[in-house]
């Protein structure tokens, strides 16, 4: 292939394609958003989030919400590709396959961050308690990166299976638990005002997991899409 598009150009093109498709249909982000609001409401009733209990569970509630919404987003983002035959089109394109992986991951990451960016202020508003801090935003950036890195890989497997709707969470949740633990612990630290230097361990750990998961997914992605 002589006219191979450059790697970063290809990534950018895939991200751009996803963003434009989303801008036109708005089904992914709106679905994730409504879903995550519902999850917060369900948590409110099931955990009776009174001010005293809330302090200890806020990080957990936020992360469960993000992760559940993320599953919906990942499933949808890959199912759209699969159903309309776009995945085959993407794979036929004369670009490096891993560029497709990175493009899809980054697009999914952006969608998750958009959802998080709306959930955080809404949560703060609903509970009259400002949860937004630089530290928390940083943790969400890192945590959701690891999540989409492995989630994009697994969702591209799940959509090709017969049982795809139930398969993604079953495949994804046991594997992302390390990321979830580190994210919840670090977020909890920031929310309860633990000084930053006591949380650096969790941040480093989270960064290390991101690197591990991203590189593993990057290495095996070729095997998932080759036909």
């Amino acid at each position, binding site marked *: 292939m002589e006219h191979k598009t450059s790697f970063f150009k290809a990534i950018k093109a895939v991200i751009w394609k996803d963003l434009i498709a989303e801008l036109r249909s708005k089904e992914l982000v709106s679905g994730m958003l409504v879903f995550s609001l519902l999850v917060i409401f369900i948590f409110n009733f099931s955990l009776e989030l009174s001010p005293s209990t809330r302090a200890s569970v806020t990080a957990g509630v936020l992360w469960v919400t993000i992760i559940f919404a993320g599953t919906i987003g990942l499933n949808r983002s890959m199912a759209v590709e699969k159903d309309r035959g776009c995945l085959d089109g993407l794979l036929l394109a004369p670009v490096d396959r891993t560029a497709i992986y990175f493009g899809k991951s980054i697009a999914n990451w952006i969608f998750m961050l958009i959802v998080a960016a709306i959930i955080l202020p809404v949560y703060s508003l609903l509970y009259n308690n400002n949860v937004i801090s630089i530290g928390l935003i940083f943790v969400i950036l890192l945590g959701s990166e690891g999540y989409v890195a*492995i989630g994009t*890989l*697994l969702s591209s*497997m799940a959509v*090709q*299976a*017969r*049982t*795809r709707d139930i*398969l993604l969470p*079953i*495949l994804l949740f*046991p*594997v*992302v*638990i*390390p990321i979830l*633990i*580190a994210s919840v*612990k670090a977020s909890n630290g920031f929310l309860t005002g633990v000084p930053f230097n006591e949380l650096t*361990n969790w941040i480093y*750990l989270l960064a290390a*997991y991101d690197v*591990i998961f991203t590189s*593993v*997914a990057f290495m*095996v992605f070729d*095997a*998932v899409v*080759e036909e």
Partner: protein
Amino acid sequence: MKNKPKFLKILDIITIISFVMATLMVFFYAPLERVMGAVQKVFYFHVSAGWVGMLSFMIAAIAGIVYLIKKDSKWDLIGYSAVEIGIAFTMINVITGSIWARPIWNSWWTWDPRLTTATIMELVYFAYIMLRQGIDDPERRNRFSAVYAIVGFISVPLTFFSIRIFDRTIHPVVIGASGASAVGSFDMTPLMLQTLLFSIPVFSILFVDLMWHRIRLGQYSNEIEELKLRIQD
């Protein structure tokens, strides 16, 4: 149909004899632990089964890597067999642990790093089985399960590491020093150590024997699939 290889027959006999020996050793050779009593005897097979579980999942991950490189369905069969056996042994590991924990920790279950990690590992491989069942095309199924065996095997130690950081374990470490918070630790007498050191290789032999049988079974089921296809044609 191939006859059962002679060496496999011998291995079967060795496995049975050594397993009976290990059981006898656990009950009659190893002394009764002074504080915990008879329930401590679960420990020998608990450790051995845990070892076989870890070994199987490691083999499954390695077989996954080799499969992705060589694309030979033989390696998929090895990986799949290892996962099935690993699930069984991890289950034995968790259940024997619970039997021991009930009198010693006064609870069937605690959210201890080791317990939690073992169970999450079990869930990862349940997911592996479900993934396989969800895909019809054999070639694709082999590829995906190889990928998932690798990803799962990398994730499990990270889970353990994460939980370990914030939770001090109450799980005793019998070889080496237990943590200060461990409950139910004990010092092994030489006879106990011998029993343990005998049980682990016995379980490893059992694993090899089971693997061999499972792979043969897989080969037969592949042959049957082919025969069925031939009839349809």
